[in-house]
């Protein structure tokens, strides 16, 4: 691959990413790309390095090798908050919300990167700051509506059940109006009903909004049903890539999940 601009039909390219923690290779020469509107799943056993890949993409980790190109721009050395501004949003495996704040406030916090008002205008409040706030609030309300959280709008996040907190996480990420959404186990610990709801939201994001997403999820049924394409990882390496039905039968994937003996 040359150094020139990447093809227009990719939103994200991760090229030969290598990440080491004092000798341990968490990610080993991994490449992946994502087309606009595509839903890519990353699967693999525990410790395969899935979350590390997301952390590299959104800038929490700095890989020792390789580069990351997002929307035609090399972001390898950009700090996380600038990547967020560039249009990258994510949810976390372990919920990372502001527990003392309301659902609405948490979602509004996702709007911060779009806020223009400054100390002066905010201090006066009336006028531009108020208009802007109303606009952000309207956006946040659209998300409340989308995720069907009207009932919880003004509840403190800490008082909500786990499944609802997970939805708030997604809501905050959506409030950033991202160009790419990284979902780290959005359904972990959810009930069957909640999972079905979450799957609906993800599908709608893909089908209606054409939002590209990378999804890490352990529920194979969900991954196989939702994703356009899968990347399977083991020990930091990409062991397979392709459409779900192909990956499902891939001998290396079976080996990684089930162990050597069963495949023979």
């Amino acid at each position, binding site marked *: 691959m040359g150094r020139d601009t990447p093809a227009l039909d990719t939103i994200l390219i991760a090229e030969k990413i290598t990440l080491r923690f004092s000798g341990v290779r968490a990610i080993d020469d991994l490449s992946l790309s994502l087309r606009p509107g595509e839903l890519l799943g990353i699967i693999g056993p525990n410790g395969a390095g899935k979350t590390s890949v997301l952390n590299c993409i959104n800038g929490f980790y700095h890989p020792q090798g390789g580069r990351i190109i997002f929307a035609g721009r090399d972001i390898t050395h950009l700090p996380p908050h600038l990547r967020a501004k560039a249009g990258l949003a994510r949810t976390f495996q372990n919920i990372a919300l502001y527990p003392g704040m309301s659902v609405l406030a948490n979602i509004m916090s996702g709007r911060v990167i779009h806020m223009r008002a400054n100390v002066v205008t905010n201090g006066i409040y009336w006028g531009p700051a108020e208009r802007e706030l109303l606009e952000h609030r309207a956006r946040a309300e659209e998300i409340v509506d989308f995720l069907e959280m009207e*009932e919880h709008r003004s509840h403190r996040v800490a008082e909500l059940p786990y499944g609802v907190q997970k939805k708030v996480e997604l809501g905050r990420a959506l409030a950033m109006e991202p160009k790419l959404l990284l979902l780290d186990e959005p359904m972990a610990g959810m009930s069957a009903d909640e999972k079905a709801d979450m799957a609906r939201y993800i599908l709608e994001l893909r089908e209606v909004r054409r939002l590209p997403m990378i999804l890490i999820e352990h529920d194979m049924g969900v991954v196989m049903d939702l994703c356009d394409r899968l990347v399977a990882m083991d020990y930091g390496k990409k062991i397979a890539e392709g459409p779900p039905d192909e990956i499902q039968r891939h001998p290396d994937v079976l080996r990684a999940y089930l162990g050597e003996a069963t495949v023979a």
Partner: protein
Amino acid sequence: MSAQAILERPMVVVPAAAVERLDTFPKRLRHNAERFGDRVAFREKEFGIWHEITWRQYLDHVRACAHGLYALGLRRGDIITLIGDNRPELYYLAMGAQAIGAISCGMYQDSLAEQLAQLIDFAGARFVFCEDQEQTDKIVEMEGRLPTVERIIVEDWRGMWRYNHPKLLAYSNLEAMGREADSRSPDWFDEMVAEGSGDDVAILCQTSGTTAMPKLAMLSHDNLLTQGDNFRIFERHISERDEFVGYLPFAWIGEQMFSFTLHQQIGFTVNFPEEPDTAQRDFREIGPHFTFAPARIYEGLHSQVTVRILDAGRIRRGIYNAAMRTGIRAVELEADGKPVPWVLRLARVLWYWTVYRPILDKIGMTRMRVAWNGGASLGPDYHKFFRAMGLNLKQIYGQTEIAGISCVHRDGQVRFWTMGAPIAHTEVRLSDEGEILERSPSVFLGYYRNHEATARSLRDGWLYSGDYGALDASGDVIMFDRMGDMLQKADGTRVAPRVIEDMLKFTPYISEAMVVGEGQPHLAAILNIDMRNAGKWAEDHDLAYTSYTDLSQKPAIVDLLRRLVRETNARLQPEWRIRRFVSLYKEFHPDDEEMTRTRKLRRGHITERYRDLITAIYGGASQFQAVVTIRYEDGRTAEMRPVVQILDVDV
């Protein structure tokens, strides 16, 4: 003897030189759009904000719907069924259909696909309105059984991006189509409306059908409008400046009475909550001036308040109890027509500002002038509870077949064991068997396509209510129970199970109760624990549990129930006392056909379903092994074998 109800002469409503007769709803609406113009007819909460819809806009939507429906082929006498949460769009369509002489028929939005299909097919509806994907899926799934349905109009298209069923049509497209047609022929709407007359059927209304399949009552514009007029004569306080919250199902006659009929007659504002889950909060934001709700709503509020109080500290609980004691004493004196001593009156004023009002504020009822209870009656204990807090809670009695209301409590004469007195132009008497019979201009036209049922309940202009009752000295109607639900014990004693059940349900830990004992030497009760409150109680007593089934059989919970049954028994005459009871492993539910959609018990079904359990109760067993088949949403089934304990209560 048939006591003729005392009739109050209504004031003359229509001026002598009658202008245009406003004998149909579309005519009323057109009149209101002129009269009220930009006043607020509806308010709907969306995206967290209350949006206002003026009377003029209401009419615009209705005109568009009428044109659109007509263009799609809906004609005079045709039926459109409406399924969805109570929202303005249902009113636009219902009124639009009525404008061209068609009939609107609301359906309960929580009905199963099977039940909806049965009703829609029976009605032979040509058009179905579905609020969202959930409802649409039910109809599309059942399409093979609905040959008459030509169009499915959907409001919220969300989640349906791949649906391309030829019968589906977006509500917004219907309106757009209609608006275009309206601009082409602006006089058409008025011509259509002018053709309508008061004796046209306006709505088909599902009756609760505790016995068999629900029936569809045909109500004309006249039925509904006379009903509203005759009711208003006794409730003159309602004005166009009032606020009302329409959060109950559109299909319910109560909503048809208030949000549809009285709304057109008086012109108050109807507010629609954002989602069913937010209804209570939205209700509180509006703080309506009056409300009409079925008993379960008041029962729910009561249990919420009591649980909060149980949760409060000892001092606050003490204050609350003292306040309620004062209130209840005063209310009891008032109900007996005795004077309330001034000390008590003074205490009530104090308690009102310190205790009652803050509680009423939490449930959005500080501005409320009157709260009516309709549908199933509310136990006297509940009446006392709310009235003690200063809420003017009154009973409404009536059936769908008489357009909802035939009796109401008179102000100053609220005796909570009665159903109140007949409204204007309404007569009530008893048959020789003790059945309550009613006659008024609002008695329905008959059941749709069901002559047999019509002939049974409509004889010589009298509506046979199917309720067993009595008339007290003042002319108030007393209703004990449904005729068919009265129990006769082995020794011939007649028992009204509902009276006992209401007392049991008043305790916060019991959500439902059914008393059995037909032909038996004594009575028994099947109880449903209230999951929330009993769960809370278990937590407070360090009792771990997994599920409803598990909790319902915990010895400590069963003991708690035994105590409650014993306390109830102490307040009943000896022949009416409960000897044995079970705590059922599941809640009665409409999906299992154990209750109607308005949450009335379907005793026949329950008796049938739990026949073995009831036999075990009367066989003297102390335990019963039930076999339950659970059907999951995806069609899988599983079997559960809970052991139910049968307990004795000393009488």
